[in-house]
């Protein structure tokens, strides 16, 4: 008969009564033939009995009140005030943090508000303008949908400038993320394939009306201004002199009537 060899693990499992009946019988017959091992196993069994005996009385002691589970459950129910206190503290911390964050944007948005916008436009240009497959999410043919989407996200009516007099056609646009919330991006191109990006988003605080200023980030240049709470920027990889009349045209069209 090919019996698996008896292992140390088998001996312990025998002591702990963790063996399948068949294996248990094999170990038992092995122990019959090996009295040395059998006495060791018997000693382990005795150890267990003594340990259980020595500790048994602890489990029979009446439970003190602190270990009464019903009391513990009850005292938890009576503690919601503490939980609310913790939540309130967290909210206060949150408000403090949020306040700081808001102040930060107000502080940074001061005179540099337009440069922030121009920088966002440059980043947007850098990501989408070189994209040959899908530079815009919504094409010019669906510009009504684009206007609606952008107006919803910016929470104010957005107009798409018409640059055809300058030789640029609307390709389409999308809503993009900026560090100041959603902004609407419109992209244009001309017959040479040169692309321009107009980025617009609401401005905060005192930057609601700001004269047009030239801006540049890396090799992307343009102009930024704010009218009636909306900031605008036109950017492209073209000389400033070429961009200025286009920016003026956009400003004229976008200005609230």
């Amino acid at each position: 008969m090919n019996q698996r060899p008896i292992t140390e693990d088998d001996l312990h499992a025998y002591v702990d009564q963790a063996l399948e009946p068949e294996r248990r019988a094999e170990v038992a017959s092995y122990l019959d033939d090996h009295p040395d091992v059998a006495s060791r196993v018997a000693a382990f069994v005795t150890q267990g009995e003594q340990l259980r005996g020595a500790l048994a009385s602890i489990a029979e002691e009446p439970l003190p009140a602190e270990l009464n589970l019903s009391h513990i459950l009850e005292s938890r129910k009576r503690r919601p005030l503490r939980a609310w206190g913790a939540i309130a503290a967290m909210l206060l911390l949150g408000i403090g943090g949020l306040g700081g964050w808001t102040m930060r944007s107000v502080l940074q948005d001061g005179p540099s508000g337009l440069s922030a916008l121009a920088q966002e436009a440059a980043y947007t240009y850098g990501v989408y303008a070189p994209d040959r497959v899908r530079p815009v999410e919504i094409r010019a043919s669906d510009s009504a949908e684009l206007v609606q989407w952008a107006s919803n996200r910016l929470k104010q009516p957005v107009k798409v400038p018409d640059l055809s007099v300058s030789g640029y056609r609307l390709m389409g646009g999308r809503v993009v993320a900026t560090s100041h919330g959603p902004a609407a991006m419109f992209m244009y191109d001309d017959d040479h394939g040169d692309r321009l990006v107009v980025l617009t988003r609401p401005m905060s605080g005192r930057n609601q009306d700001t004269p047009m200023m030239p801006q540049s980030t890396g090799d992307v240049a343009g102009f930024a201004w704010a009218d009636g709470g909306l900031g605008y920027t036109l950017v492209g990889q073209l000389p400033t002199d070429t961009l200025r009349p286009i920016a003026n045209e956009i400003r004229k069209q976008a200005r609230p009537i």
Partner: protein
Amino acid sequence: MKDMLVQVEPLIPALRRYARALMRDRAAADDLVQDCLERAVSRWHQRRDGSVRAWLFTILHNLAVTQFRQATARGRHMPIDDAGEQELVSAAAQEQRLTYQDVLSKLAKLPDEQRTVLLLVAVEDLSYADAAAVLNVPIGTVMSRLSRARERLQQEVDGVAPGNVVALRSLK
């Protein structure tokens, strides 16, 4: 929470026994169990399927290990004879009591990792798999620690003649 009461309450005596065998101090052990029960109540809904018994022993064991580490860091060592064995065996008969005291002081000489596995398997009757879960080690490690624990305890038992124990005790 009703099912919690039904499933946890019957296990509290065993938790106390394990805690006291580890801590060897009634008040400290019961504090540990209380801590364990409070955690169990607040985490009841986070527990995964499986043995509630193993889950509770895991919480308790981790609390005990944390205590041991803190005690070690403070350099505090609890001498075996100060451990209040009176409380451990108050109901036992005098003669048997000496045997019990003896086995407990020998158990106390084992390294923590051997003592815990022996208590979980031999006293608390946890399966090897549950003990492995409580100790967060593979079953193979449980088996090797269990083997070492039993050998070591037996060496302690064999090393001292039974009469000596009584003599040492009566000197106190």
